[in-house]
Structures are given as structure tokens and as C-alpha cells.
């Protein structure tokens, strides 16, 4: 094996590693309507919000979730980073609780723009937008920090 081919393989590995690391870092943040006073939640509390077990905010407003399809990056991130299950499993369980009448029907959005529009529409609405989308949030929206 020549020095040139070894170097080429190292460069290729470095590129793949960088690509993988970039995908792993691509995160999402929890956003809420600015009228909602909640500013931070623990990871367990975020779980409770998005699995429907926690039904109201501190001020009594009902929680309304913004949910995407199973192949939307936000749902894949939520299922993986928060619930440690597949998006398919997470969404199936949520659907079941909606069907039981235990959780209010979520509203749907599959991208940052749609999510922002949904969250602006109600004081109790909560959703996920990408790190990139968070850089230009409207003033009527705010971030819920995950402790």
C-alpha cells in the first residue's frame, strides 16, 4: 500500500467522521408561545409533556403538541434523544392516548415554518424546531431550556 493511498483513506475517513458528527449534532429545541411563562424543564418533564402524561402548564393552560410525521427530522430527534425509541413507536403510543381521549389531539407540522405558525396560534402550544431555525425566532416565541 502506497503512502498516497493510505493518506487518501485517512482523508475519506475524516470526511465520513465529520459528516457523521455533523448529523449527530443536528439538534432541535423546544419552543413555546411567549405568553407561556415556562422557561425551563427537566428532560423527564419534557418527556411528560410530549407523551401526554403532563396535560397542563403551570398556569393551567392545556398543553397542545405540534407533531410531525414519523420521517420528519424533529420526530426522529424527539423519539431518539428524549424517548430512546423509534419515531414509529413514539407516534403510535401518542395516537393511542389521543384515541383513548387522554391527550388532546395534536396539531401537525413537518418543518420549522409550520411549527412556528402552530405555536404562534395558541398560548399552550409547544413544538420543536431545528437549531438553525432557532436563530431567527419571532418575538412571540421563546425557547424552553432542557435542564
Amino acid at each position, binding site marked *: 500500500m502506497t503512502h498516497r493511498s493510505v493518506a487518501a483513506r485517512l482523508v475519506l475517513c475524516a470526511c465520513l467522521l465529520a459528516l457523521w458528527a455533523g448529523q449527530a449534532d443536528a439538534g432541535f429545541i423546544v419552543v413555546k408561545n411567549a405568553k407561556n411563562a415556562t422557561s425551563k424543564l427537566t428532560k423527564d418533564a419534557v418527556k411528560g409533556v410530549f407523551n401526554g402524561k403532563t*396535560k*397542563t402548564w403551570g398556569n393551567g393552560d*392545556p398543553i*397542545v403538541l405540534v407533531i410531525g*410525521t*414519523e420521517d420528519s427530522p424533529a420526530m426522529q430527534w424527539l423519539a431518539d434523544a428524549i424517548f*430512546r*425509541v*423509534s*419515531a*414509529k*413507536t413514539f*407516534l*403510535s403510543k401518542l*395516537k*393511542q392516548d*389521543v*384515541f*383513548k*381521549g387522554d391527550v*388532546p*389531539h395534536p*396539531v*401537525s407540522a413537518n418543518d420549522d415554518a409550520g411549527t412556528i405558525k402552530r405555536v404562534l396560534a395558541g398560548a399552550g402550544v409547544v413544538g420543536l424546531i431545528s437549531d438553525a431555525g432557532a436563530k431567527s425566532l419571532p418575538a412571540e416565541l421563546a425557547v424552553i431550556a432542557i435542564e
Partner: protein
Amino acid sequence: MRTRIQIVSIASVLAASGAARADVTLNFFGDIDYVVEHAAETSNTFQAATLDVFASQTEGKFSFIGEMIIEAVGSNQFGIDVDRLEVAYKPTSWLRFRAGRLRSAFGYYGDAYQNGKFFMTPVSWPEMYESTQFDGVVPSHAIGLHGDVAYGLGQDRGKLTLDAELLNGRGNGLDDVPVFQDANNGKAVNLRLRYVGEGSLGGFIVGGNVYVDDIPAIDVDGDAAADHPAMHELVLGGHAAYVDDHFHLIGELVWFRHRAHGDVMTHKTVAAFGEAAYQFGDVTPYTRFEYTHFGDEDPYFVGSGIPNVDVQMLSGGVKYAASASVAVKLEAAADLKESHRHVLAQAAFAF
């Protein structure tokens, strides 16, 4: 023809309300099956017999659920049934009231899965809740008032919940749900007490029911087999379930006692089932055993079309989660006492 007109009318009303309120969403549930069945003889058939239209809406502390089922049960004619029509009021996080037609708070299976076969691991309900031939013996459909309260036991220690219901109760038969006129003035009372686990016991539920009712008498002209006297009913039930991301263990036991008015003789029936499953990724193999024992010929159950024959049904199968909206299942079942077996392939959906 009339059914078709009714379906079109109801769909139009739902569509119109959906357009008027952009935040009302309709969901559609159902299943498509292929069944090979062996009893006296062997038969096979495709089935596309159920469409479930579900709508819910929340406004502040009030919420609404409407669920309409268009189905053909035991025949090739579709009929329409409003399975749920309920309004709920939740003044606090630990207290809720509901009124209307609802799934009663009895046992685990009825209100955990409602009518959603997509959500169930096996292809259908345990027979004590519902079968393909007749409604189940458990009083799972109800019209009336419901209240539930939860008492937290501390951080990650779970909670106790109490459901209390005042209902029209049983109709003239198991398939008769008195949605407009109760056949007698006595009302059924149903109480369910549960422990619901949290933290390390998340997914664990154990509880029990007491259900008391007065069953109206029925005298069908020319059909003595359907007749039964007015009866007092006492039902006691217990259930335990552990359902998490991988494990699925559910067991229920129900004891029924019926006594005709003015009589001392009682009719007792026991029904139970247990099911177990473990999820490997998208694939979930499962098994279920069902047991029903009739102490003697109960006039109410026999009059409702249930054969006075004990059941010991063993079934096993596999569920494959094809997507968040479609599940494919394959199940084989055999009655250990009777010559009755079936194999069923199902595609269940929830859009």
C-alpha cells in the same frame, strides 16, 4: 340504500364541520383481514368490514370525542353505530368528568384500546370484551356519567385512581345499548380503583371493579330462547398489566352473578384471559389464553346468543409495525375444548 345515504350524510356533516373549524381533525381506523376458519367445516374469506371515524376537540377545560363506526358484523350489510359521543370537563389535573356514550371504566382492555385494533397487539379483543359473533359479557359500552380522580403518592411513586360511573346499564341483550331509552329505571353503578405505577414501576397498572345493575326483563314473541326475567347483576373484576416499550403483560379476571327478581337461584360465570408479548424492534410475537366457564345456563347470556359452552382458547401470533399508521399481524388460534381453529392475517390502520 338507506345505509349508503346515511353514510354520505354523516360524512358530509363531518366534512363540513372540519372545514368550518380547521383545528378539528378526523382520524380513520380499520382493518382488512383474511381468515381461514375451521369449525364444523373449513371456510376462508377476505374481510373489509370496519371503518371507524374518530374526531376530538379540546377547548380549555372542555373536550369532545365523537366516534362513528360503520361495520358489517356477522353479515354483508353495513350498519352505523355511534360508539362514543362524550363531552369531558377537566377542572384540575386530578379530576375529570365525562358524560355521554363512552367506553366504561371496566377492567384494562376496554378503555385502553377502545376500538383501535391497530393499537392492540393481537388481532382483536379478548372474547369477554367482544367477539366476531356477539358482544362480550363485560359491560364495556355505557351511557351516562363518569367521574375520575387521581391521588399522587409522591415523586415516582405512582398514583391511586378512582373511576365512578352512573349508567343506563345493560339493555335487553348484550348487543342492546340503551342510548335513547333505558328499558328500566334502575341505573348501573360502576366503581374502579387502580394503582398506576410511575418511575421504576412505570407501565404497571393493577386494579379492580365492582359493577351493580338491574337487567330488564325481555319477552320476545315467538322466540322463547331470547326471553329472560328481570335480574340483579353483580360483577367483580380484577386486572393487572405491565406494558412498556418492550414488555406487554396483561391479565384480567371477571366474575358475574345474576339472580332473577324474587328468586334465590343465582347464575355464576367466570371469564379470564392472559396475554404476553415482547417487542423486538418492529416485530412483536405474542400469545393469549382465554378461559370462560358458565356455572349453569345463564338466561341473560343465552338469550343474548352466547352458546352455553365453556371456552379455552389459545392463540399466538406476531405483529409487525410497518409504520406509525399501519400494522400487519398474523395469528393462529385453537379452542382446546372444541373443534374450532382459525388463522387470521390482518392489516390494521390508524390514519
